[in-house]
């Protein structure tokens, strides 16, 4: 569904994407994980035509985004990191304008808006002004809006940033539901648990470079199944073990203070880059 080959993008002297290459298969829920400033949003912005690429090539469903950007855009839906709804318009007007931008007929716009408002459980909010909606409702509306023209690929740029835990879970369920309808999802996040919960496959990005990719299980299993955190002299470190027994034995043989837990994607990222995802 997505093929990126040696994508390079810089802002002035800052290199945002450094010869990035990756593939995303049709129907996949793919997560791009990395700290703020790693290049996640830049990748989405380039793929969506919001930013120019300096060099390289990118294809969406076989369409070269530089040679036929309008055709590529028709295949995509986009949920941006910031709530980019028209706050002075109603929920329905936002959906209707989006449908018009994508060339839907009057009946298609009406049917799609009704369907996707019901999908995000906002049918009763159609006449509400967006500025009166909470952050969680705005995020759900953004997902509905991105689906109105029935894209085959949905970009979600940090879809739960700034949302509380309960609403974040609700958005996750919605994202899963969309993916189960056959929509390929390209998700960027710096929330470890979001990538672990949602993604079929994860890629780590750090300083514009792809560090590693694989399923969450593969990435975590490369370290082990269990971790012990040690806090000594104001610093922390983690040791990794293939099973719970050896991890427990390590705690018992140590000087005390070890905390047992499961290995997570943060550990995998840290071991590969020397940096935490959440810095």
């Amino acid at each position, binding site marked *: 569904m997505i093929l990126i080959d040696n994508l390079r993008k810089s802002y002035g002297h800052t290199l945002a994407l450094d010869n990035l290459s990756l593939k995303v298969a049709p129907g996949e829920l793919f997560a791009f994980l990395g700290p703020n400033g790693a290049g996640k949003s830049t990748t989405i912005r380039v793929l969506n035509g*919001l930013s120019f690429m300096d060099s390289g090539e990118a294809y969406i469903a076989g369409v070269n985004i530089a040679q036929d950007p309008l055709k590529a855009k028709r295949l995509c839906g986009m949920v941006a990191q910031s709530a980019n709804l*028209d706050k002075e*318009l109603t929920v329905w007007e936002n959906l209707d304008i989006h449908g*018009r*931008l994508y060339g839907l007929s009057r009946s298609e716009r009406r049917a799609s808006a009704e369907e996707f408002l019901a999908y995000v459980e906002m049918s009763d909010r159609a006449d509400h002004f967006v500025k009166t909606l909470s952050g969680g409702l705005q995020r759900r509306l953004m997902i509905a809006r991105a689906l109105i023209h029935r894209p085959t690929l949905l970009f979600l740029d940090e879809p739960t940033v700034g949302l509380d835990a309960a609403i974040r879970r609700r958005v996750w369920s919605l994202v899963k539901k969309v993916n189960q309808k056959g929509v390929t999802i390209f998700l960027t996040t710096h929330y470890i648990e979001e990538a672990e919960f949602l993604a079929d496959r994860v890629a780590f990005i750090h300083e514009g470079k792809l560090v590693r990719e694989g399923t969450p299980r593969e990435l975590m299993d490369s370290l082990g199944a269990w971790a012990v955190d040690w806090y000594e002299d104001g610093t922390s470190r983690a040791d990794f073990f293939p099973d719970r027994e050896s991890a427990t034995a390590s705690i018992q043989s140590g000087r005390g203070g070890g905390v047992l837990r499961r290995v997570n994607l943060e550990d995998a990222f840290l071991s590969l880059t020397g940096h935490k995802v959440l810095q």
Partner: protein
Amino acid sequence: MSAFWAIYLREALIMKHRLLRQLGGMCVSPLLYTVTFGCALGGAVTIGDKSYLDFLIPGLVAMASMTQSFSIAGEINVARFYFHAFEEFQAAPISRLSFVMGESLAGLTRALVAICIVLALGFLFGARPHVGIYFIVAVLLNGWAFACLAVAMAMIVKSHADQSLLTSFIITPMAFLGGTFFPLDGLPAWARSILQVLPLSHASKAIRADAFGESPELWPFLALAGAGIVFFVLAVSAVSRARD
């Protein structure tokens, strides 16, 4: 066509939702100018065989069509820098041409509403300008040219503060020096030759001629159309620059 209409409709809906506030805002400047310059200061002044109010109202029409169509730049900037709604257009499969056409038509719509207010206020205070086809064509050309300039500027600036500076340095001086409040004929030749180049001077001249029931010259229309085409091309090319 659908995309162009979507862009226009979005601006029209925003205007509709704010209509009362917007109409109120559009009334303030023309009302102040009409009362202070047209009636109080200019009450005893005649220009040629016309009262100053009769002279002023066509100038205010030209000025309002410029300022209100240019104000679409502010709307685009709010959408771009504060609400990030402009990203929705950038990610959508629409051409640059559709975007510029939609936004410039929205600017022109504002201009047409504004000149209706100016004419109504003028009528209230006793002015009776002739509103013929040349008057309307000049207003449309002027509004369209400045709406296209507004779109171009809104795409080129990097912040809302930059936009305010452009308004201060381009639109405000032109509003006062473009033949709105006084005839350019009375100025020294060097000043007249500079100010006559301004698009607003051409608009004032063409609108005023028709308002006085005279046959306007052709060249102000050609100058406005030329400016409009240049600003339109500039706007279309500037849309790409808004990408980073």
